[in-house]
């Protein structure tokens, strides 16, 4: 087991870091303050392959892998949680299921523009009555001749309104339970499909989180992803990959908060010396660093397992569970170590703490992750 990353990953990290510092970080405060989706950053990221990192070149991707993708989300999230989730939701939740379950025609038509960054992706599973209980889908899809007709709504959808391509789950046969759910590819410009209310959130405030509304929305039958009744399975497998992305986002937030805190405690003087000299400060930092590093190993392992085409669902759950809780802990300690200044918006740590909270909730709450891990143990 080699813990050293190959040179290509070292160079990738260098590029990600430089991009994050120069292009993403200067906007982070404003994006949060104004709840603004960073369109200009998305434009730039497109040019350098950020939206198709793990997909083969033949589909417009960068021809890299899931580890490279996780590192990208990590480095972006270090400076801006919003930007990290934009890439993560697009890649893992929209492009990936098309890559994994789509027909060749669907890949050419939908995956290629997504991987090239020409189009942005989103994923609609959650509904008002179906969160953790994802099987409780109310949105329905009925086959009418050559078209599927979708009716219903989704909430809390990341990238909504800015995305062009949406993977949408809908009930096609209520009597079948989870086997009665199917997955569909819906384009934003489809009549009957509109974007509803935008949520006001605690954190990742620049991320567009909105309702999707389907009213007699007709899509070509070729837009069925996978087979009828396969939707729940597609959703669950998709979320496995998404968990790696969110775990990477949480990891980035933790690392970013830690880095800021190390700089601050060296500069801040109280009682005639730098507060970094106090043992409490040192011990807190040691704990923050160790937990972040442990999170990193779990995230990278899950990514590597996915790249090796091994089963990685359990690893992804562990990574997401641990990294999100670590992020919450580390960012909270970061604010504490910054003292009063940490509570103000002059320093980025309060934003990182607000951003971290959602990582314990979306793409499967920590409780769901615990269900996955224990089920794997007790099977």
């Amino acid at each position, binding site marked *: 087991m080699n813990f050293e990353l190959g040179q290509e990953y070292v160079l990738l990290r260098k590029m990600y870091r430089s991009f994050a510092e120069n292009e993403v970080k200067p906007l982070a405060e404003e994006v949060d303050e104004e709840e603004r989706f960073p369109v200009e950053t998305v434009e730039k990221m497109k040019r350098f392959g950020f939206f198709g990192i793990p997909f083969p070149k033949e589909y417009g991707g960068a021809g890299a892998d899931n580890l490279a993708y996780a590192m990208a989300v990590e480095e972006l999230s270090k400076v801006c949680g919003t930007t990290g989730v934009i890439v993560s939701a697009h890649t893992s939740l929209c492009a990936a299921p098309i890559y994994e379950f789509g027909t060749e025609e669907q890949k050419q038509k939908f995956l290629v523009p997504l991987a090239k960054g020409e189009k942005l992706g989103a994923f609609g599973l959650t509904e008002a009555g179906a969160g953790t209980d994802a099987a409780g889908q109310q949105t329905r899809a009925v086959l009418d001749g050559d078209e599927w007709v979708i009716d219903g709504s989704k909430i809390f959808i990341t990238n909504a309104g800015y995305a062009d391509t949406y993977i949408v789950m809908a009930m096609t046969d209520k009597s079948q339970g989870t086997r009665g759910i199917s997955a569909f590819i819906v384009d934003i410009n489809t009549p009957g499909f509109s974007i509803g209310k935008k949520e006001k959130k605690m954190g990742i405030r620049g991320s567009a989180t909105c309702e999707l509304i389907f009213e007699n929305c007709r899509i070509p039958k070729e837009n069925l992803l996978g087979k009828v009744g396969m939707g729940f399975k597609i959703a669950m497998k998709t979320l496995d990959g998404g968990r790696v992305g969110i775990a990477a986002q949480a990891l980035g937030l933790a690392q970013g908060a830690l880095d800021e805190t190390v700089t601050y405690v060296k*500069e801040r003087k109280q009682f005639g010396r730098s507060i970094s000299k106090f043992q409490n400060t040192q011990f807190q930092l040691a704990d923050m660093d160790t937990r972040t590093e442990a999170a990193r190993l779990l995230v990278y392992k899950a990514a590597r397992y996915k790249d090796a085409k091994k089963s990685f669902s359990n690893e992804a759950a562990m990574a997401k569970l641990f990294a999100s809780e670590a992020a919450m802990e580390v960012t909270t300690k970061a604010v504490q170590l910054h003292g009063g200044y940490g509570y103000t918006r002059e320093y980025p740590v309060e934003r990182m703490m607000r951003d971290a909270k959602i990582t314990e909730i979306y793409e499967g709450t920590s409780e769901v992750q615990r269900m996955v891990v224990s089920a794997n143990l007790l099977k």
Partner: protein
Amino acid sequence: MKHTDYKDVMVFCEQREGRIEKVSKELVSKGRELADNLECCVRALVLGHDMKDDLNELIHLGADEVILVDEKELAVFMTEPYTKAMVQVVLDRKPDVILVGASTIGRDLAPRVSARINTGLTADCTSLEVDEETKNMLMTRPAFGGNIMATIICPEHRPQMSTVRPGVMTLAEPNTDRIGVISKVPVKFETTDMNIEILEVVKETKQKANIEDANVLVSGGRGVGNPDKMKSLESLALRLGGNVSASRAVVDAGWIDRNNQVGQTGKTVRPDLYIACGISGAIQHLAGMEESEFIVAINKDETAPIFDAADLSIVGDVHKIIPELMKILPIHENEQ
């Protein structure tokens, strides 16, 4: 050729528009000191056309001979004609040492010459001495981004060439009793020597657009008092060839544009010189400037935290000290 065939200190005297550059006068002064130690002559080499300065000044500063190559091809600096002329003179006169000012011209010309005559060149020297035992030059220069100093020797090759940083060597007092000789040397050029074409010559002395690019920052804090008083900081900045920047308090008060803010929520700067005027030194401000090469802090409050970060701390009133400074600081070319 043996070393004993090489004698004298030759100083390349750079001219622009017929006027000798200050750095060359500094080098003639230094050359005199070296030549006295080496017991030889100083020969000042001037390449140009229709010189406006009185070349006797070079003699008054210590040159024994001014070698003037006056050709129309040398009116404006171009690498090949200058190299050809200099090489011709150097091969003829065989100096032991050649000093060139490390200007944008010197750093273009000297390496070309050294490569043509196959000798060693040491760049951007800040100190020149003679090794008492060997009588070789000891040429000391900064390296590694200025983090270390290296003393370089050129033991086997002649001439020993070095470019010297402007402003480092001391200008001598001119001695009008000194006598010397001005020799004119002709150099013939071919059309192939004129291998570049100058389409346009533009003079501009510009202030840097961004505070992050400035070499000198004069920065104001709340202690400056009121927006009018920022003007004196502007004059000082102009005098030092730099820009004005400010702390957040000053920006929030509307005395200066946000682009000039230094600090946690502003910009991070690392100029060669940062003068903090009436800035208390809150941690958010320090975060933006503590990497500056040389920090001077002026503040009435002797307990101000800025003094912990400063290299030179002055307890006093900015508005009394700046006028005194303006009296004794030399005028900057930007001010003309």
